[in-house]
């Protein structure tokens, strides 16, 4: 079991009063799982994703990552956990514009302290894996949206995470490019990495083995393929 969330809630203090973004969600994620999270805007999908990725901590309930209670970990330990075991793919890619594709992918490995030779080897493999070996030395501004998202996926896979979290990964892409990214994510999942995708795109959601539908911060339904 990678993630074991039991009755987790997240309440935000707002000037108008407290807002519950996620309400008593219970969810288990195992190696190789392929989960899609759907629901209307503001239903708490991204907040749940951030909690699963140890970026946000729950205000109540228990969330164990690899058996460790995330709420008890220091910020530094949670950073390390994310660096080594979790990969993130964002809707807006968030590639660093001053670095090349190669350097963007290399960055998390460098932070994890991987030796230079091993890093370079792994960057080559990852860029080949996402089909961008030929664009390794291009900056994000020289890449298309789909290519940027491929680089972002390669970066998310850099340290061989057990869990890959994707927040609207096709949100900024056209249908064809979105399908290519979806296929790439499928491949990642088939290689054993657990995948959780937050999406509005039914086509992308339908590729998952489990589809969670959220409403008002709660999991309204779960469909298992």
């Amino acid at each position: 079991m990678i993630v074991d969330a039991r009755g987790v809630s997240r309440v935000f203090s707002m000037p108008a009063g407290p807002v519950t973004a996620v309400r008593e969600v219970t969810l288990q994620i195992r190696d190789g799982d392929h989960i899609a999270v759907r629901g209307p805007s503001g239903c708490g999908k991204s907040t749940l994703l951030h909690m699963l990725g140890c970026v946000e901590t729950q205000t109540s309930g228990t969330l164990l990552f690899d058996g460790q209670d995330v709420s008890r970990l220091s910020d530094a330990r949670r950073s390390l956990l994310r660096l080594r075991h979790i990969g993130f793919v964002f809707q807006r890619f968030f590639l660093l514009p001053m670095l090349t594709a190669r350097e963007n992918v290399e960055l998390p490995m460098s932070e994890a302290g991987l030796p230079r030779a091993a890093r370079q080897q792994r960057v080559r493999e990852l860029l080949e894996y996402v089909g961008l070996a030929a664009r390794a030395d291009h900056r994000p501004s020289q890449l298309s949206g789909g290519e940027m998202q491929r680089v972002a996926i390669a970066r998310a896979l850099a340290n061989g995470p057990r869990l890959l979290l994707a927040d609207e990964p096709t949100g900024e892409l056209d249908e064809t490019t979105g399908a290519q990214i979806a296929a790439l994510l499928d491949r990642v999942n088939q290689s054993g990495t657990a995948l959780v995708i937050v999406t509005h795109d039914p086509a992308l959601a339908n590729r998952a083995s489990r589809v969670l539908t959220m409403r008002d911060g709660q999991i309204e339904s779960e469909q298992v393929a």
Partner: protein
Amino acid sequence: MNAIGFAWRSLVRQPARAVLGVLGVAAVGALLFDMLLLSRGLIVSMQDLLDRGGWDIRVSAAELPGSGLRVPNALDAADSISRLPSVQAALVIRSALARIDRASGRPIRASFQGVATRSTHPSGSRLRAPWTILRGRDAAGPDEVVVDERIAAESQLEPGSEITMRATCVTDLEALPATRLKVVGVAEFPFQTTNEHTTGGTLDALKTACGGNVGHDADLILVTSTGDPDGTAGAIRGLLPEVTAATNREVVGRLQQTGFTYFRQISSVLTTVTVSFAVLLITVLLTVSVNQRLGEIAALRALGFSRIRVVKDVLAESALIVGIGGVLSLPLGLLLASGLDRILKGMPGIPVALHFFVFERQALYVHAALLTATAIIAALYPMRIVSKLPIAATLRNEVIG
């Protein structure tokens, strides 16, 4: 990629912004460097001027020069001083107003310094008059003088030329007899001011120029000790209670307390202002830069970059801007210092050889320390922004934005 490498790439990403930031720091750093040079420049330069001639004690009638009071019975006093066991030599300096006639044009108004050495020490005779011979030789006879470069140029004199001088040693109203003197050298007078003309010779030469009427007093007696200036100055004070004997260090100390105050104050005020200015502007520069990259920073944090790492990146960026700007500020500062020095030396009564801005290694260290502090303090607020950055909320806002 380490923090410095990362910061470098962040800077290069916006070259115009980076170049302007660095240039701004260079300009402010240059001013800061100059203020540090100014804060001790006069003291160091004055110390150097005083030490240059090899005389380490000054005996005068008043504590500070320029009082107009003279040491009475100066030759007798110098004789007594030279007999002290810790004294190598004593040099009596008596100055007079002089007019040097020219073949064409108005006569030159100059000061004539007459000197006489008294020594019982074997090495005392090696000590020379308080001027440096540039061409020719030093004046030795009663009809010989050395002149400064300005007189030499304006009167077209060279060693071997003759001049007609009228000097007055007692009062301004005295009749001025004309005397022919031989120019044997061209010299540099360390305490000569920009708009002054100076000639020098022996006390006998001064007597010749003044028509034998020099009186018995002197402006100053310079003394060289055998190695213990403080002890020797004390001994002189004991021997001659009516005069003031001060070591070069004491003279500089007194001037430091009085004459140099303005420049020390303006230097400390401007140092504070420039450092504050630099801190404020680099803080704004970094804060805006960080605010523009919040999404990227939040993404890096989500990918597992630690809080310390992103804070280090900001600090490194600040260090790079300030570091590069600081290095550039040194040559710029030296250039600016020479210009400012020229301006300040236009002040009346400032010796030509005295400098307001003097390079010292210590100034370099203080400059580096102040710029390091600037880089750190300027980065504090943007570092706080990235350290407190709520990752999830920032990522959400970036998507909504």
